[in-house]
């Protein structure tokens, strides 16, 4: 009996710890007061409405969106062939490739960001946006390779041979029988990559310039000057967006199988 009580206590604490901040943010965002505070002073949608009136948020949201979509697409464009090659061929440098591909998750983001700034943006005069795009692609790549590899490993390679014997070319077999069967893995990788890129802070921190800021960075710098609840409102909106995406993904793809 005591054990049961303890179990529930621990469970409640864990949930409180994980989900609690989310409720605090939502409550703070719906506050009617002038400054970011909890408990909120009254309830209103004024800060939620204000979020949509701040120009810099609109720009940085667009940038973050574009980075997340195109960075993830680029990562998949590279990652699917890499995963395929790793799964199907005995590459002489397979281990090295695996390491290089997962480096971006192992190396701390701060270092990646600093390195890109110091050795790419500054000396080579590369556009900040380009560097951001490259960085986000590299960051998402490990996830893309992993998730796609997982679904490739569940797929027998002899169906490609069967397709070839029925007249398909090797490439045709890839598009006709491999791709359709790893489609849900690719979609899962896309969603995971999208969320990873969208939430990325450390790398993007270094790679911001005049008018070029991702949304999380923009929120931080907004907080430095203005301490009103609109940031909380924005955070809550983003959280709902993420929940919606993951919920839909789980509903239609069985997302959790791949992660």
């Amino acid at each position, binding site marked *: 009996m005591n054990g049961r009580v303890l179990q529930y206590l621990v469970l409640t604490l864990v949930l409180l710890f994980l989900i609690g901040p989310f409720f605090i943010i939502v409550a703070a965002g719906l506050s009617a007061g002038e400054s970011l505070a909890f408990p909120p002073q009254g309830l209103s949608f004024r800060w939620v409405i204000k979020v949509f009136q701040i120009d810099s948020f609109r720009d940085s949201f667009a940038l973050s969106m574009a980075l997340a979509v195109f960075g993830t697409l680029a990562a998949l464009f590279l990652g699917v062939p890499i995963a395929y090659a790793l799964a199907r061929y005995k590459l002489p440098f397979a281990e090295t490739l695996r390491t290089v591909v997962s480096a971006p998750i192992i190396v701390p983001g701060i270092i990646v960001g600093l390195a890109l700034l110091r050795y790419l943006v500054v000396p080579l005069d590369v556009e900040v946006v380009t560097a951001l795009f490259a960085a986000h692609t590299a960051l998402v790549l490990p996830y893309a390779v992993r998730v796609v590899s997982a679904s490739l490993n569940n*797929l*027998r390679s*002899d*169906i490609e*041979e*069967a*397709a*070839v*014997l*029925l*007249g*398909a*070319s090797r490439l*045709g077999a890839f598009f*006709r*029988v491999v791709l*359709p*069967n790893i489609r849900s893995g690719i979609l899962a990788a896309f969603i995971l990559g999208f969320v990873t890129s969208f939430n990325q802070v450390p790398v993007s921190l270094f790679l911001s310039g005049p008018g070029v800021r991702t949304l999380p960075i923009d929120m931080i710098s907004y907080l430095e000057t203005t301490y009103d609840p609109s940031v909380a409102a924005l955070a809550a909106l983003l959280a709902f967006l993420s929940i919606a995406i993951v919920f839909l993904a789980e509903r239609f793809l069985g997302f959790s199988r791949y992660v």
Partner: protein
Amino acid sequence: MSDFLQLESLTLAYGKSIAVESLDLSVSRGELVAFLGPSGCGKSTTMRAIAGLMKSRAGQIRLDARDITRTPANKRNVGMVFQSYALFPHLSVAENVAFGLRLKRMARQDLQARVEEGLSIVGLTEFATRMPAELSGGQQQRVALARALVMDPKVLLLDEPLSNLDARLRLEMRSELQRVQKQTGLTMIFVTHDQVEALSLADRIVVMNQGRVEQIGTPEQIYNHPTTRFVADFVGFENIFSTSDLHRLSVNSPSDPTNPAPAPLPLQTPAQALPDTDGLAWRPASVVLGRGNYQGTIVGSAFAGTVREYLLQTELGPVRADVNADLPAFHAGSDVCFDLPIDKAVSLSSLS
């Protein structure tokens, strides 16, 4: 037409290790050929080479009077049913069967008629809209068969088509394969390591061992007249001896004082009558105990219903003998003489 499909000194290798060495085989149109041999002897490798899924290191493959050694797999018109069926999981049964026809850009009506025909040959018409995951193993097998058949291949290769099925289904599919082959007149090669399957199904059997062909022949030839040590052992001629040993160890005084069952008439083979081959082999059932030119010691016996199985220690080596269980038993440890009747022997050209 005895050379519809011809393999000429075909050598196949994985990197440095040779899997199949200098294999020769010709198959005539409409023939049903079985590759029989133990695991790892190169059966699948040979099939994959015929299909074009594997490059040959040396040698030639000719099909229907064309050299196809360098023809890519998708241009050979060779069908294959994989051991794992290899159905496309994202396509329905009908779409699986239609896959190759679509690649041929066959007209819609023709395609539909063809798919229906294919499904009806294997008796799966009602399952056209099912997905592969919703089928039993035997049904999946038949979809794979239909998918290959509708392409009208010159040769159909089947890699252990029956090994994943339970005993009842295996029998069913066996007759199904035979029926389809009769109905279509298709040239078929199938792989098996089940002797009974090969003997009952094939027109001709290719016995392989360690990447080489041991013997090619009809089921009767293989079963009753093996020519190599390996094949003899494989089909149950377990007592294999070199002719010179048989000469040397044959005793010319047949009377044996310890013999508990005195032979009414000596029937033993005079050593001079042995044929001029490297070796001779006998089935355990052909060995006669209690009389004869050879001597040994019983080291083991087991009752097996109609026969008693004996293991003898002899100067020739171990000898297995199955003796009618109605006859009086020999006891372990007793010395007996035995005969190896020459009319029951098969001669082996090589003992290596």
